[in-house]
């Protein structure tokens, strides 16, 4: 990573942050909506307490752990969602004509995508903190093996979600119809990524889909660390899978960025929206 790339990452992250958090109302909203999400996750589970569906989930996660299961699933999901939203915001660059101006510069394309994804880290980190505080307040019996393991949990969320974010960003280079990518990636990720339903409870075909989403393994690691006091050896398999998925996403991003720019230079679609 050279100095120019680092400069591009920083410039893009600052620009996105300033563009999004342009008023104090945005910070206020950031305080409100994680709390609303927290309550929403709690009460979406409540009506099913004691039901057959609840029993099915309880079979995989344990009766007394259902709420913690949903909570940590949401923590993980929201982390990824923030990055997907940042990628979606990037599509507005096309509308405002600034995407062309970015591509007019010699800045590292990957650097710009990374910077855009990193701008969401602020939001994600905040959400994570709010949810964790909520978890600590709600569950006094959190089972964490060592102080080192929550750091592993954070990294297993941050790195894959950044990889996911830049991958989504690079897709937007190819197409101006961003809606299709949300349909293809966001909803299936929410459904099959194990945020709400235990991944082992899925049929094989759904597991095959879910297995490709980094959220599946990030959520699994976070849950094991916070709910089951997992040590490093317990999450080794998930970490390996997650690493492979991240490498795959990163390589795919590099390819898409190169192809995307070349395609845009051929078709002139960078200015279309």
């Amino acid at each position, binding site marked *: 990573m050279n100095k120019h790339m680092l400069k591009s990452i920083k410039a893009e992250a600052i620009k996105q942050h300033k563009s999004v958090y342009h008023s104090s109302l945005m910070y206020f909203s950031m305080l409100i909506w994680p709390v609303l999400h927290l309550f929403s996750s709690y009460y979406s589970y409540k009506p099913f307490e004691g039901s057959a569906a609840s029993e099915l989930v309880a079979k995989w996660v344990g009766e007394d752990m259902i709420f913690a299961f949903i909570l940590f699933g949401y923590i993980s999901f929201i982390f990824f969602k923030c990055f997907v939203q940042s990628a979606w915001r990037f599509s507005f660059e096309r509308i*405002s004509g600034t995407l062309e101006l970015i591509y007019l510069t010699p800045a590292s394309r990957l650097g710009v995508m990374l910077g855009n994804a990193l701008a969401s880290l602020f939001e994600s980190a905040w959400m994570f903190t709010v949810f964790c505080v909520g978890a600590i307040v709600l569950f006094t019996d959190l089972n964490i093996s060592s102080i080192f393991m929550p750091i592993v949990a954070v990294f297993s969320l941050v790195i894959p979600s950044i990889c996911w974010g830049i991958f989504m960003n690079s897709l937007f280079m190819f197409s101006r119809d961003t809606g299709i990518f949300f349909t293809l990636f966001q909803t299936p990720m929410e459904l099959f990524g194990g945020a709400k339903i235990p991944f082992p409870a899925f049929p094989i075909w759904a597991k095959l889909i879910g297995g490709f989403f980094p959220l599946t393994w990030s959520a699994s690691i976070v849950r094991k660390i916070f709910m089951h006091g997992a040590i490093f050896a317990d999450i080794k398999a998930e970490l390996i899978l997650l690493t492979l998925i991240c490498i795959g996403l990163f390589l795919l991003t590099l390819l898409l960025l190169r192809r995307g720019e*070349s395609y845009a230079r051929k078709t002139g679609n960078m200015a279309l929206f």
Partner: protein
Amino acid sequence: MLIAKGLKKNYISKEKTGFLKSRLKTVEAIKSLDLTIRPGKIVGLLGLNGAGKTTTIKMLSTLLEPDGGSCSIDGLDLTRDAFKIKHIVNMIAGGERMVYWRLTARENLEYFGKLYNIPNNELNKRIDNLIEFVGLNERANEAVEKYSKGMKQRLQIARGLINDPKYLFMDEPTLGLDAPIARDLRKFTKSLANKEGKGILLTSHYINEIEELCDYVYIINQGQKVMEGSPKEIASIVANCTNKYHIKINSFPDKLKVQLETYLSAIQSDYQLDGADGSFEICVSTHKDIQSELIAMLSQQTKIISFAAMEPKLEDAIITLSEVRAYEQAHA
């Protein structure tokens, strides 16, 4: 020096042929364009909508890949050395887009400056100078969304100069601007070429703007060059090409009709006739200034109710030039 030879650009577009049916269609946006821009000179690129002006600018600024031909900018190849060329060129387009409205002018310039990897100290100095240069000093730290159209355009100019480009491509920079602001911008553009030695390519719809600023002009239509020359040459062709006279007369006797037709066909000109309310309206299109001859001819045989000589328009000149070129090509 920027030298483009035989530049070509095709777009593939989909043409709907029925429900869920479409076929691919190739549109030749630029057919073969030769162009030279010398440092310190302003070159005009004139043409109607869809002529290929913006496509040319985007190719020269590396945003579009040419499908044929070659272009070198200070010895660098447009396709092979695109990333190096990005350091020495920039583009300014008309309109209010292409800046971040929620950022201040300074923040916008800082952002783009960093993408060009300009060292921080130098960038700060350059931003201060540019902000002063475009007259935004007093509102440099205000969000762009509060700026007027002219101020946003001035910020665009500062943004286009942030990397101190050797070649600047200006795509209709005065589009939609008030006359005084457009005048300031023209003055400013001239100083960029004369004082700072920048090679500038300027596209415009306005012949006056081209006459005032450019050292050399290319006229393109439907992706092809129809003429090149000094602004004076272009202006004279425009003037000669498109004289139009709208005349209202109260009668149109046959003798006059024959005389007019004979006269106009001798100078390869044409007329259209409309009759209403007992009067006749004649619209004469000609390449020559025949105002006095027309008045003399008509007044001898009828009463002239009104006579209006229409100012020549660049659009008419381009159409005429294109027709002439097509005719020449067909009979070559």
